[in-house]
């Protein structure tokens, strides 16, 4: 190994060490875990569009829409529609508990995603 090769090796190690040290410091330097971002970063359209405003009306939802609810498969969706047809629609969310395949646990998981709109 020539002298200049030794110097090049050490220069490489030096550069790599500085890079690693800076990167490591950069990861730890925030005192707060999260920094607030500007509100304008995300459009209000996006905030309104997703999830919060999209509840499933169990009196009008199709079988496919019902299967989008957590824990509801095609069979349970069919049971919901059968119950709806035979009882002239739902009058309250709690009636979901009368359907075979929906227990308390499943009901708790879906109750915030469903609504009962009798007008539709």
């Amino acid at each position: 190994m020539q002298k200049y090769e030794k110097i090049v090796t050490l220069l490489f190690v030096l550069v790599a060490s500085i890079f690693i040290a800076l990167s490591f410091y950069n990861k730890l330097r925030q005192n707060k875990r999260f920094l607030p971002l500007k509100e304008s970063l995300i459009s209000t359209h996006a905030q309104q569009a997703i999830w919060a405003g999209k509840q499933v009306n169990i009196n009008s939802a199709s079988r496919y829409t019902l299967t989008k609810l957590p824990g509801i498969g095609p069979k349970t969706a069919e049971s919901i529609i059968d119950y709806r047809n035979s009882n002239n629609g739902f009058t309250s969310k709690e009636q979901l508990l009368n359907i075979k395949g929906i227990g308390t646990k499943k009901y708790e998981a879906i109750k915030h995603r469903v609504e009962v709109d009798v007008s539709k």
Partner: protein
Amino acid sequence: MSQNKALLEKRPLLAAFLLFGLGVVSAQSLNIPFSIIAVLIIILFIFACLTIAKGKSLFFVVSGLLILVLGMATYINFNTLPKEHISYLLKPPGARYYIRGRVKSEPIYRWQRWGNRRCNFTFQAMAYKQGDVWLRLKGLSEAQIDNNELDYNYGDDIVAFVALKSPVKFANKSSFDYVKYLKAKGIYTIIDIEDDENVVVLKKSAGFSIRKPIYNIRRIIEKRLKLYLPYPDNTLISAMLLASRHSIPKYLRELFVKTGSVHVLSVSGLHVAIISTIIFFMLKACRLSRKISSVIVIIFVSIYAVIAQERTPILRASIMITIYLLSYILERDFDIYTALSLAGLIILIINPMQIFSPGFILSFACVFSLVYLTPKFERLFTRKPNSDTSLAARSYLSRILQYIKSILFASLAVFIGVWPITAIYFGIISPISIIANIFIIPLLGVILFLSIILVCVPILLQPISFIIAHFLHSLLGVSIKVLALLSETPFAYFYVFDVRPYMIILYYVFVYVVVKLLLDRNMM
């Protein structure tokens, strides 16, 4: 022993690669704080500076230790997550968030058994909503949208309502660890999105990235393959050319696994080498000088590495080919061990976790076995040509025999070098791969050549494309039939369970001793 010492002394990069790798592996088990590592680096660096003018051995030892500690520092730095990392949101478990981020890989769409489509992609988190404010977020996640109908693209900025989960290890026979696999990609969380209604695309193809036009080319190639080739041929060619294996039918994938030729389906160093050679000869046919052709091939290989989504074997092969061509352009000697070591060092500096990934280990073990064992086999089994045969017949026959022999030796060398790794990671050993590869590797060259022509031929020349597609269809049909036949031969493959690392170490020591005692002695 002295030979090994010379091997390392003549190739300091090989020593550096091995020590850096050792540093990464030891950092995982030793759990040393970064501050101690930093102090060690400073002390060793000063000591190394003082030994520059001193003897060779002392500098070798000190700089070797320095590189080992640097490997440790790289590992610790890579695994230290920033304070705003998405994985901190995993507590409480099952919590749901509005998260804004960017699609950072080509989405993969898969049909599920119950009839819905699932979309998977790597997601780069940028912000999440807490109360009424959006807070900064960093880090990558593996995102999956169940009940997916819409198409997403690389670079899309999205906001989604998600459930965050930790990845879990699959309970299967092999020791493939999904958690480690994701960790090697810098991914610590899984984002679960119920359906497209929980996703809003804020901006299509946001930000600048060289990958965008390249992914467009990728999509065009996939479309062309679908247009000219029937299913599942198009999926096979797509895997061979673009490394997209997800749409290959399960029975075909298993066939390739059983016959030890699955490397054909995941773009490997072999593919890069074949494609580079094809391009090189195409350029030569255009009467371009070798140096200009070399520069063009280097550019092509770099782009191809991005098209094939920067998989480790492709990166390794691309770096090695680039070094080879640069050594030609700059008129310097090419040493394959040095090129391999430099490729390994670059990959580990970018991502030290790669050392634990099967792709990295297989790729390097495969090349090392090839360059170390194949010449030894060739020298051991090569005899002087029979003087009775006529000169013309001898050269014709011996060329064919030599070609078959060289593939056989290469195939044998690779099998000896990598079967313990396939056993430990995938739970399968395929001795039939020695024969299967003799058949499949030459065929792969032809298939890749025809596929490149099929992709490059303009849409106006459809008859030519259909003729090439017909050839490809026949070639793939023959390949599958032969592989099916080989997979049915007795002892073609067998499954193994509970392979311990010490067994593997003992095996490699045994191979080393056998090579030293038998092969090296015979050559003297």
